[in-house]
């Protein structure tokens, strides 16, 4: 299994990672090798096996619908790289 540099570049965009040219090249090599290894699973016939996403098989857990204290806004945003005391600040999304 071999990935092209173009494949890896598309995955980097999906993963929101601005990789350098060197990183893209190295990642292409390494991911090809790792994907080749995990393709070992293809030798098993799993057509009749139900996927297991979670070890517990727990179903939804609900609590009583009663209001309770939550983290105050000022604490929740205190560690943000940019904030105005009330909101997180991000670069303009709709243009200047």
């Amino acid at each position, binding site marked *: 299994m071999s990935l092209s540099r173009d494949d890896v570049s598309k*995955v*980097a965009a999906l993963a929101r990672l601005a990789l350098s040219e060197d990183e893209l090249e190295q*990642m292409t090599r390494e*991911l090809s090798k*790792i994907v080749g290894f995990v393709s*070992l699973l293809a030798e*098993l016939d799993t057509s009749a096996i139900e*996927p297991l*996403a979670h070890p517990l098989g727990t179903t939804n857990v609900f609590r009583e619908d009663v209001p309770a204290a939550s983290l105050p806004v000022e604490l929740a945003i205190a560690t943000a790289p940019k904030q105005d005391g009330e909101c997180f600040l991000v*670069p303009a999304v709709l243009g200047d």
Partner: protein
Amino acid sequence: MQPTELSAVELVAAVANGDLTAVACTQAALDRIAALDAGTNAFLHVDRDGALAAAEAVDAKRAAGQPLGPLAGLPVGVKDALCTRDMPTTCASRMLEGYRPPYDADTVARLRAADAVIIGKTNMDEFAMGASNENSAFGPVRNPWDPTRATGGSSGGSAACVAASMVTASIGSDTGGSIRQPAGLCGVTGLKPTYGRVSRRGLVAFASSLDQIGPMGHSAADCGLVLETIAGHDPLDSTSLNEAVPAYTQLLEEPLAGVRIGRVPAHFGDGLDPEVAAAVEEGFRVLEAAGATIHDIDLPHAKYGVATYYLIAPCEASSNLARYDGVHYGHRTKEPCRSDAFDSPLVEMYCRSRAEGFGPEVKRRVMLGTYALSAGYYDAYYKRALQVRRLIRQDYQEAFSKVDLIGGPVSATPAFPLGEKTDDPLAMYLLDLYTVTTNLAGVCGISFPCGFTGSGLPVGYQLQGPALAEPLLLRAADRFQRLTEWHRRRPTTA
């Protein structure tokens, strides 16, 4: 009496009956860290003032005749993946450098409520991704048995700080072996509880269906003592089990007579270091001497464990680590973000912040997970891995209908030289051979020393048990430790 030479059980008893003060225990731990940790790098943060204040509060409580918590005065190191409201929590990543969470992880809150003294935060592989602790953005941890060698990972700091007797016990987390493997390579005892036994609230998420917090110490009895405090239901973690917590330390006396222990012949194939194989085989003899019977069993899908794990864990990680977006906490790029190469300045800010904040292994796993979850590949990779996960769990269910516990190696080799495997990510992944299936099945496992190599490196023995079998797991390990002295050996540190 040197407090750093005591077991957790002994230290807590000495504080409770007034033979030692909590301040003396804390000071001894801090002194040892000051003397040794420049060479070990086990701690990313030492909270000297906070620890002494917590210890003074314990001593004041005792002086006032108030009841003490079950871990009163116990110096504990906590892996830097657990949130602490008064200390930085970095996950050994530049992404979270300087981050101080607004709340304590459930485990941290329980330790404080039990009057334990949190000494500091321990080094680890970045975001718990690694098997050598060399992926820390703040430098590797050196193995106290040989500083040219790795501690294993990802809870390498938590293993090393106990091995070097800087603290009496520590907290690690185990997603695919991250407690058990470093415990094995550092000659300490480390327990990965059943999935859901310990709340994950406040544990920085790596792979949520696999992550589990657990104790590390010099003995099974010490791990049981700490587990009594940190286990239990947490309404704020919907995957934490609503099951009573047994008094593990009170359940160690029953002999092992009649307990059936499985041995998997395939565990002893090519690639297992002969000295490790010999020590592990001798481990089976010790358990036999304690009254257990040994039975050969098969886990037919175990050979698919590493491939299954390296799909599921990166897929979950790629989703969990999407939260590091330069907005809510952590690193944000200083670049102007006005390039035409991105859809918008916001997307460019995401992409640059993440590329600058994450180290190479974290990027690799986020990429691998994103790829395996992407349109056209989901069925071939992620879904198939989930199907094989069911087969692996069925193997365990089948095995535990024939035996009570499964014994074997925790790691194919003793501690390896720093730098030996850093150029080959896949070789590093293969180190997880003996440990990942425990997490995939959601069962429990423990690693403890069963011998030493000719050159003086510890060898770990792993026992695995079915869900919620911690009482039997700890009892078997404790029996082993009553018959052997391996866990009492200490490295000759400066």
